[in-house]
């Protein structure tokens, strides 16, 4: 068989039945092999969209997402999405065609040094020099993508390698196995002592817990060691909905209760999170009274930005039970419960216009169980994190580390293909939506019943908010009031839609959207003046939140 066919054989060996991509000269042999393959290829309309779909697929399912592109412009179009997968630790394998080795290094047509480009945005990358290495390299790529702290892996395959003949004997996929996770419980005793002694313990939960498959162990840990908990953007949905001590998201747009409690705690138990600057605010002033227990699979995260009094490396599933010590902090728990009550969200927004937080709360209550919500980036993204509840981080896909506008729509395509039984909703902004709007064509072609909610403030709202607060209300290039008519735009892709402007239209519009069997676009017009609160201003400590009343 040819190298190109071998690629598809190996993909199938890894259980891959869905891939996203876009053809071109240097990857034509693989597309030719696809023509008669059982692997289902979904044609995106921009490689960035295809790779985001692979990310959405991976994040919604826990499997490795696969995308493909041709050399040169096809490969460069993948870069942003690979960076997104890198910063959010998403297992993705990207396969790119490369010009033939005979002309490599001669500035051939559509030749770009993709391996060189990949260094900053992948966990690892390969250039395949011979068809004899092809299968082993692909096995390695899968092993690396999903092992340890997951991440994107790129495999660049020159056209001559795709065309070369090879006698293929199916080798076991385990031939290339990544280093087994090494779990060190050496500091477990120290961690237990810290937990047992803490008067004000706090669990700070990131995306690493669910990625480790440790959701059950987390609930058990929180039950055996009652303590308040907060999550990062990526960790949302990790704490069971019935856990009364959960305080919400922390950080720049976190809840007041979460931020205040973290600032007051005397022990911070960081589980699969990394003290990102959007979480800590002013690092020197972050959780100033807290000793720290840090559990992670990536040794490089330990002591990277915050010193850990006890660090535990490895498999979260083993570590959580090993550090359980029992807590005795009734007073602290009731103090935190009081903070939560005192600073609860208010939805009694005056006037007729739609208040996005309330609309999203209604959406959250109305959406079927286990729906997946894919966000874009900006104010609407923060409102989703604040006002919607999720039963698993796999149900809330939001571009965290890279904060990439254009993520939502293509990620929803991937999520829908990964979980066809579940409802998939994109919540996008009028700015972000336009960044990968071409993927409406993908939705049209495959009749994917994705529900699209556009929160339209006619602005690059998040940037506008900063201009208002920190740049003297000089609104440089953030006005989008001449955006196209989104309902008409959807109609051009045979997607029905509806536009609402008043609060009293919300319930029936959501009902209509969910009742409609196919894809649907709901255009929600809101006031361009609405902002996201609370907000920790740059350089401030997390307790110095600006709230709506103070603004």
């Amino acid at each position: 068989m040819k190298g190109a066919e071998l690629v598809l054989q190996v993909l199938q060996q890894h259980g891959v039945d869905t891939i996203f991509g876009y053809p071109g000269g240097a990857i034509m042999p693989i597309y030719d092999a696809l023509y008669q393959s059982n692997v289902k290829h979904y044609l995106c309309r921009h490689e960035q969209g295809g790779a985001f779909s692979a990310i959405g697929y991976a994040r919604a399912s826990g499997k490795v997402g696969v995308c493909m592109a041709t050399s040169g412009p096809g490969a460069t179009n993948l870069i942003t999405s690979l960076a997104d997968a890198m910063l959010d630790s998403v297992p993705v394998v990207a396969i790119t065609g490369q010009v033939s080795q005979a002309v490599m290094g001669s500035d051939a047509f559509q030749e770009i040094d993709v391996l060189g480009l990949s260094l900053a945005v992948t966990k690892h990358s390969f250039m395949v020099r011979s068809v004899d290495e092809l299968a082993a390299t692909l096995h390695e790529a899968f092993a690396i993508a999903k092992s340890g702290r997951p991440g994107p892996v790129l495999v660049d395959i020159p056209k001559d390698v795709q065309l070369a003949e090879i006698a293929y004997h199916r080798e076991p996929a385990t031939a290339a196995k990544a280093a087994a996770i090494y779990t060190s419980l050496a500091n477990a005793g120290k961690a237990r002592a810290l937990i047992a002694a803490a008067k004000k313990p706090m669990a700070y939960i990131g995306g690493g817990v669910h990625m480790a498959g440790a959701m059950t162990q987390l609930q058990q840990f929180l039950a055996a060691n009652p303590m308040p908990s907060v999550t990062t953007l990526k960790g949302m949905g990790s704490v069971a909905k019935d856990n009364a001590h959960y305080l919400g998201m922390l950080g720049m747009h976190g809840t007041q209760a979460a931020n205040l409690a973290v600032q007051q705690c005397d022990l911070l138990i960081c589980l699969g999170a990394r003290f990102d600057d959007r979480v800590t605010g002013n690092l020197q002033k972050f959780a100033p009274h807290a000793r720290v227990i840090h559990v992670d699979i990536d040794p490089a995260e330990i002591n990277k930005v915050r010193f850990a009094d006890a660090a535990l490396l490895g498999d979260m599933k083993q570590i959580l039970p090993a550090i359980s010590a029992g807590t005795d902090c009734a007073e602290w728990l009731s103090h935190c419960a009081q903070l939560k009550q005192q600073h609860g969200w208010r939805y009694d927004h005056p006037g007729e216009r739609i208040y996005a937080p309330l609309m999203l709360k209604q959406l959250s209550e109305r959406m079927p169980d286990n729906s997946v919500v894919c966000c874009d980036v900006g104010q609407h993204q923060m409102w989703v994190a604040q006002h919607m509840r999720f039963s698993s981080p796999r149900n809330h896909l939001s571009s965290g580390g890279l904060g990439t506008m254009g993520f939502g729509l293509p990620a929803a395509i991937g999520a829908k293909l990964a979980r066809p039984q579940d409802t998939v909703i994109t919540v996008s902004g009028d700015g972000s939506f336009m960044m990968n709007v071409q993927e409406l064509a993908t939705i049209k072609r495959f009749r994917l019943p994705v529900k699209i909610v556009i929160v339209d403030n006619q602005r690059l709202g998040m940037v506008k908010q900063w201009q208002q607060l920190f740049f003297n209300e000089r609104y440089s290039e953030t006005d989008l009031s001449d955006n196209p008519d989104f309902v008409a735009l959807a109609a051009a892709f045979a997607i029905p839609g509806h536009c609402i402007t008043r609060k009293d239209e919300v319930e029936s519009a959501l009902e209509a959207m969910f009742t409609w069997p196919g894809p649907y676009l709901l255009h929600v017009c809101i006031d361009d003046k609405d902002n996201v609160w609370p907000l920790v201003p740059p350089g401030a400590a997390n307790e110095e939140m600006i709230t709506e009343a103070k603004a």
Partner: protein
Amino acid sequence: MNHVLNITTTNTPAVVERLLQVTRYRGYELAGLQLTPRSDANSLNITLTVSGDKPIHLLTSQLHKLYDVQQLELVSAELAVLSA
């Protein structure tokens, strides 16, 4: 402060770029680089000297994660004292 790292890597085309990219991105300056293929030609012995004000573990922990790095040893005397 200079730090000397003795590194064994697989002999793959981009490996030196990877080491240098991580070194630069994490905020250390290159102060020296020596490279010799081992007798089997499948791996390389690399001596990487870097300077920087940040603690060196912030660099070594990231270099360790490179898939091509087989062994990494910090040999600078300064650090031996620090980590003791």
